[in-house]
């Protein structure tokens, strides 16, 4: 095989993005568990994962710089490099938003205002979207990417339902404003995470087909 080092670097790039994806999934998952159960211990453990994300992100950036400066990738390889850069930025935002969710569990005292049923469903859909968008990246599957992005509508609908419910609760009883505001922030984070998953899916379609699409 010619250009062995180059092919190794490309493989390393893909692996690093998938590792970043894996840890993003864990952070989202644990943050949701922490906030639903108000598990302070789990929330703190989750926050400790952030430096690992930063190291991975830095490694991806170095690999991309080296590839562009030293190897001049073209065609499908160039699309991999461009989409890896974009996907990394989206995953980093997903991690940031998940960390915000974990921090909410440290702020709410006592119990939740109400059982977080729809919020849990939103979190599950967002987690599923993240898992599938990463799978679509790994297998370069544009159909899976498009199907995954379509789930964003469900997240948006639930966001609206919970949002209205929380606003009504605050209108009826101003004492709940503090707790309800935290929950509004939580659903907003989940809605944004789903949007970033759609961005990942757009990058996957571009990577696989060179087609630039808008999926959200």
């Amino acid at each position, binding site marked *: *095989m*010619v250009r062995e080092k180059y*092919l190794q670097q490309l493989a390393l790039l893909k692996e690093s993005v998938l590792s970043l994806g894996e840890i993003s999934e864990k952070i989202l998952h644990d943050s949701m568990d922490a906030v639903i159960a108000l598990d302070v211990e789990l929330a703190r453990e989750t926050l400790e994962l952030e430096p690992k994300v930063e190291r991975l992100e830095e490694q991806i950036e170095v690999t991309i710089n080296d590839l562009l400066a030293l190897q001049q990738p*073209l*065609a*499908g*390889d160039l699309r991999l490099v461009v989409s890896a850069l974009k996907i990394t930025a989206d995953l980093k935002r997903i991690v940031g938003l998940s960390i915000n969710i974990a921090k909410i569990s440290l702020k709410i005292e006592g119990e939740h205002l109400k059982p977080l049923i729809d919020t849990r469903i939103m979190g599950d859909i967002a987690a599923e979207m993240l898992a599938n968008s990463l799978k679509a990246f790994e297998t370069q599957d544009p159909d899976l990417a498009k199907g995954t992005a379509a789930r964003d509508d469900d997240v948006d609908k639930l966001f609206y339902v919970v949002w209205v419910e929380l606003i009504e609760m605050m209108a009826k009883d101003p004492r709940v404003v503090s707790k309800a505001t935290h929950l509004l922030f939580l659903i907003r984070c989940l809605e944004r995470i789903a949007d970033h998953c759609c961005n990942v899916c757009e990058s996957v379609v571009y990577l696989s087909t060179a087609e630039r699409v808008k999926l959200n």
Partner: protein
Amino acid sequence: MTEAIQNVAKTQIEVKDLNLWYGEKQALMNIDIQIPKNSVTALIGPSGCGKSTFIRCLNRMNDLIKNCRVEGKVSIEGRDIYGAGVDVVDLRKHVGMVFQKPNPFPMSIYDNIAYGPRIHGVNKKAIEGVVEHALRSAALWDEISDRIQSPALSLSGGQQQRLCIARTMAVKPEIILFDEPCSALDPISTAKIEDLIMALKKDYTIVIVTHNMQQAARISDYTGFFLMGELIEFGNTRQIFENPDKKSTEDYITGRFG
């Protein structure tokens, strides 16, 4: 793909079903291509793929090779250049060529450029203007205008190559063929030749063979990929380098074989 290109630009060189043999060995197979006027077309492919053989068909340089047999049609501005009654010397006046290694004649800079117009009967007075114009067009005038009677071989490699381009332009061709024009040059000289090629397409149709993929990507409007005597893919340069149709094109430009 060729059809799409044709819609936006006028075809100057049309090749239909071109086959070429060196003795028993077939070097080009069923080549069909339409090269648009006032554009830069790059031909890429591994050594021995037929790209140099192909451009040498465009001004019948292969006629000089023993046992070389050409079949098919090559038309320039609608005229079959392999047809009866074609004056090959006149053809090469219209289709100039610049080679891999600069090959100035062992005479002065001035005489190198004046050589072509002289044998084509341009008068002495007019030749002076032709020489200056050619040297200016080749972006060489400012560097050598004070030593135009010096031997051409005293110039640097990059200057010699631009002199050869000026010499080609002095006989006012419509098409200039470049066969690896920068492979013997340093990066600065290469950049000058590349700038020159991009500027020249305003007045000429340019076909360039290159092994330098980045060079093809930088300077050409259209790119053709040759492999084992076949034209595998021909299209807009951007499309070829961002999203080629054929897997073998992608494998070649990304260095997976070659």
